[in-house]
């Protein structure tokens, strides 16, 4: 067992974990943060995307021990107490989700995308999110949602 310590969604969390424990399992099974779902075991789908030190990672592809000392943000830590993040609002406004299973990962990947490129073109959005699969929306409204969020966040 290895001792780890991390800031998760703004709360200091510690744990004794097996070195092989995946980050997503630490979040879900140990910390009870079940808002981050698991969609595959090959790092293809991106449903489990979270931010580690502000960068998006697929948490099924990271070991829990790798986030020792890091800051982890999940979908459950994105909204403030009284307001959703603009990306969350945009996904609802633009009907960018149906079943919602890919949505946590899609939103976290979008947050990272927009931090790197605040005004992406449609092509840049499609390219930027190609590691996050959705089976319901055909991506049409996800692309709209990302554009909408970008406009809201840049105040245009």
């Amino acid at each position: 067992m290895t001792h780890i310590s991390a800031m998760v969604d703004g709360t200091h969390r510690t744990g004794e974990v097996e070195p092989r424990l995946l980050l997503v399992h630490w979040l879900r099974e140990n910390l009870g943060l079940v808002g981050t779902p698991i969609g595959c075991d090959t790092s293809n789908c991106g449903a489990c995307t979270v931010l580690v030190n502000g960068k998006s990672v697929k948490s099924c592809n990271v070991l829990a021990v790798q986030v020792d000392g890091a800051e982890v943000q999940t979908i459950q830590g994105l909204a403030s107490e009284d307001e959703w993040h603009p990306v969350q609002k945009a996904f609802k406004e633009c009907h960018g989700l149906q079943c919602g299973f890919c949505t946590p990962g899609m939103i976290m990947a979008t947050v990272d995308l927009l931090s790197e490129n605040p005004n992406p073109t449609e092509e840049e959005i499609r390219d930027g999110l190609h590691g996050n699969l959705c089976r319901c929306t055909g991506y049409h409204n996800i692309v709209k949602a990302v554009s909408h969020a970008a406009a809201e966040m840049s105040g245009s």
Partner: protein
Amino acid sequence: MTDTLNETMGAIGRPLRRKEDARLVTGNTNWTDNIQLPGTLHMAFLRSSIAHAKITRIDTSAAKAAEGVVHVYTGADFPGQPGSTCVWPVTDDIVMSHYPVICEDEVKYVGDVVAVVIATEKYLATDALDLIDVDYEVLPAIVDMEAALAEGSPLVHSDKGTNRCYTAPVPFGGNYAEVKAKADVVVTRRFINQRLIPTTMEPRAVVAAPMGMADEITLWSATQVPHVLRVLLAMLTGVPENNLRVVAPDVGGGFGGKLQIYREEVLAVILARKLGRPIKWTETRSESILTMHHGRDQIQDIEIAATSDGQILGMSVNLLADMGAYLQIITPGTPLLGMFMYSGIYKMEALDFTCTGVYTNKTPTDAYRGAGRPEATFAVERIVDELAAELGMDPMELRKKNWIKHEEFPYTTVEGLTYDTGNYEAATARALELFGMDELRAEQAVRRATGDTVQLGIGISTFTEMCGLAPSRTLGALKYVAGGWEHCTIRALPTGKIELVTGTSPHGQGHATAWSQIASDIIGVPVEDIEVIYGDTGRSPYGMDTYGSRSLAVGGQAIKVAGERLVEKARIIAAHQLEVSPDDIEFNAGTYSVKGDPEKATTIQAIAFAAFQAHNLPDGVEPTLSGEATVDPMDFSYPHGTHLAAMEVDTETGKVKLRKYVAVDDCGVQINPMIVEGQVHGGLAQGIAQAMYEGAEYDSNGNLLTASMGDYLIPSSADLPSFITDRTVTPSSTHPLGTKGIGEAGAIASTPAIVNGVVDAIRHLGVNNVLMPTSPQNVYRALQAANKGGAA
């Protein structure tokens, strides 16, 4: 667009933002895998890595001794116990199969269950799988359907004496041989509708626990069909139905893949009862791709006969449908769901239909988005294009010459269905307007004339489909075991809030929002005061669940009738309180008022409280205020549309690019056009995926080669364009709200549009067929074959 209701417009028809989204965008979700109960034991499955083999020995002793392992079970522990069942024996002489919960002496596909480990932790359960020692005697794998039917083929089920599951010749109208004899032109093609894998984003998951009252077992499952599942689990496990509660919490997509009773669900219920502890299992994606049922997988031999001036006379349809190794819930019926759709939107004199189901050593097939109708639509829309090419006619002109005209509805097709309403002219006109057909045809001509290495093709799909499965008597006549009704109860609670209990079971379709919109207009209560309750046989005891675009088409009718019954009961109480006759009461937007004296009024919320108090009810009126209805649909409904695709094909590499896609759908009255459009987008993506990207591939030994998301190509955002969509509105005449279905239309319509476009791009190079998916490899092979004069 706005979420705010105003007095001039009802809730129906408005693009209200979804109620569901609040929890889904914040992570406050309730997926089955989120459930963590004290004392849970975890299941892990040892699955066969061989397609067909005898199990000669299993040694579980090392696994049983491993850390955390509570039990290891094999087939010997559950002799004769079925793990799934088929409720649609389509012919009298169908060869049924026994699908064991755990294989006893033989495995029949890669992924078949050999043993199950029960352990205290998920990781430990999986670790122990490696300690189980199995000896196999490998048997020949039956992979190819035609080889399976050949004399002397090895058998999937050796005790059955054949790999033929059934042959269903269906005596539709007319005499095809006669019309063929008088035809000027006969075109035949073999289409391969390849095997697909549903790949819901949420993998399957189950938790079964002895909870609640008495001997109750509760099963949470990522299922589309909690009600159907409860009945079948009771039949298969021996747990009395009244001790079984099935809950489908948040469910992350279904597409037919979760319209099933799976052996993992059966085993979870059996073990929760046997061990008295919660049992949990969530599949890995690799497990899901191997063992969630697959879809499609048909060989379609299609023939069309016509006159030289383009009058379609008839069609002959001969299908081979791969059942896989076992029959599951509606495996044999799935290809037959398409049999009514082979004439599409066209008038013809005769149609011959035969379907043969074949056992192979592959994952069982079953319903996948559209279930039979996409296969039929692909065949008819492809063969009509081939006929146009043979006749030298414009493919749209050929369609116009043969389709059912607006004024000819209701129209009884050669298959005997009566299409209620439709306007193919209007949808086509709108699609052509959005597409810019003339400019694209001009560009195509230039590219052809200049010998451009990138050629342009235009694909057309003018489709219809059938929703609202189905009048129960019709299902009975088709030998389906269950009915096609739907239930709704609407309760007005003492505080004026509304509970709408539906038997439909959404998994992304937005029922909580759309059903609130319907009820809001009928009972005059704001959308936000209505809570939709579903997916739990404990709270919603009656229902037939969600599949086949039936939820609005059938469930919507039940909402309307239940709401009207509630309104009528409240009217009697209102009249009593206002001291007039019920005939003198007007009801409008939630208010009951006296005709000619609108100041004398009360509200439905006030009546709800009065019905709860019961201090002053008319004689003979029972306390509480609710309306309840179980509705059997009077007929199917037939959404339709015109889809157009502009396809670029690189003739040097075979690479295909979808440049532009226009979809004009007609699903009748739209309850929430935003949700309708979302359904269209998603359907398009899945149909386009079949046409361009996806396909389950097996090798000759029955190994699934596309067994991960890395190998099975689910399109990403970078693989699809934005879509151009619109709707025409031709209300259904068989549905009291005028609605049709929309959940599957995109998936049904788009596949032939894409492939017709690809073939159109390279037809001048001698190509008249391209296998799906239209991958660079398949396109390149078609070009090479044509180059050698070997076109199909």
